[in-house]
């Protein structure tokens, strides 16, 4: 609900210019990690170190969720022994960490990203494929923001290129 409130704040004073997508980093295998490389579209919108820290913290959370160790084996064996019926009443470790991640992203959006006209979308809502970063323009300062929003609807590359080049 805090995110929605921020959303409404943003919408009143800004309109969506463009979205960028932080891709997955598969250099460590199939575990869920995102690229920490600083996207050029965010240059000037947010400090490099802040952004990279957010992504690194998220990566840390995902690594914790997928950690293979004593506790995960215990959970797996216990679940197997109950023919997996225990999942009807118990939350898995992974799900618990995903909830932590959602709270963290909400926090980060409120404290760091919304004041800079940015919004992070929880990767779980994008199938864990990408971290979607929505970039907002101030309504008063944009002539090209309308082209940015139309690009989202039509999916054409020219609008996106225009949005990225406008700042």
């Amino acid at each position, binding site marked *: 609900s805090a995110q929605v409130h921020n*959303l409404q704040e*943003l919408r009143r004073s800004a309109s969506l210019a463009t979205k960028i997508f932080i891709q997955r980093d598969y*250099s460590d295998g199939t575990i869920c990690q995102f*690229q920490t490389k600083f996207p050029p579209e965010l240059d000037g919108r947010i400090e490099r170190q802040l952004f990279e820290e957010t992504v690194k913290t998220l990566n840390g959370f995902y690594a914790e969720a997928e*950690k293979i160790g004593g506790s995960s*084996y215990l959970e797996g064996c216990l679940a197997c022994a109950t023919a997996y019926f225990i999942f009807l009443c118990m939350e898995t470790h992974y799900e618990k960490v995903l909830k932590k991640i959602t709270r963290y992203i909400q926090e980060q959006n409120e404290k760091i990203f919304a004041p800079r006209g940015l919004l992070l979308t929880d990767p779980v809502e*994008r199938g864990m494929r990408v971290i979607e970063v929505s970039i907002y323009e101030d309504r008063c300062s944009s002539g090209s923001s309308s082209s940015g929003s139309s690009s*989202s609807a039509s999916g054409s590359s020219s609008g996106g*290129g225009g949005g990225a080049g406008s700042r």
Partner: protein
Amino acid sequence: MSVMVVRKKVTRKWEKLPGRNTFCCDGRVMMARQKGIFYLTLFLILGTCTLFFAFECRYLAVQLSPAIPVFAAMLFLFSMATLLRTSFSDPGVIPRALPDEAAFIEMEIEATNGAVPQGQRPPPRIKNFQINNQIVKLKYCYTCKIFRPPRASHCSICDNCVERFDHHCPWVGNCVGKRNYRYFYLFILSLSLLTIYVFAFNIVYVALKSLKIGFLETLKETPGTFLEVLICFFTLWSVVGLTGFHTFLVALNQTTNEDIKGSWTGKNRVQNPYSHGNIVKNCCEVLCGPLPPSVLDRRGILPLEESGSRPPSTQETSSSLLPQSPALTEHLSSNEMPEDSTPEEMPPPEPPEPPQEVAEADK
């Protein structure tokens, strides 16, 4: 004065999901479209076990030990539970890219490869080289508009990209992938044990009873025994073989798909990077590792399109809640991309291995 409350039926996300799956119980259950062979599997297991409990168990419990039907019941319940888990759960489907994301990726592809002139077919496969510590090649899926993670594959039967795709199993009526592979393995393992158990005790029953009343009399009294033995005999050869094969795969942390394609075998190929090198560690990871939840959000509620509180221009901002899937389906159908045409991209629907190709009635 009475107030009219108009109840609109809530639309859940599963109703708008692309792909060729069927959903039951308001999105709680997810299966492939063709379920006929799955019903056959159910029928064979339930039928054989019912006959076993009704006839042989009653005699053996008295003559030998009451523990016999108890163990049989435990095995039966475990294999049914794992079968239903395998069939009804999300195998690890990767949701398709939303239009914004697809456009962004296409832009990136064009930037690296150069724009494809209108009307010309783009190259069949696009590989993305991500160099962090090593070079990772990813394939682009034209249907889902995403770069597939390593070990993921697109199932042509269900029309979805599935993570750690093993194979599509018609006997369970679903794909076998990252999220339900352990259930599948435990199912075939417990089914093998159950088959051996029922087969063995049928033989014991026939032997014991024949000593008292003769072989032919025994068969006349319980003709179901012969049927059970027949089914178990054919099942043994197929399911036990399959269990052995998958035990081999689990020990090496490989998927059926990789085994068929020969991804890690051969002189010029890289060794399986996902194997820990240790059989026990591999088994533990595959069977007892952390279980990622489904990212499909089948039971999420789609907001009504005509809700007056949000003007259309601001709808892009809360894209996570938008019913973009119908738009996406239109986007896909109008896109004449060669998504399914290249044979190499599609995994075979059922791998042609001897244990699985048994045409006889299987349990």
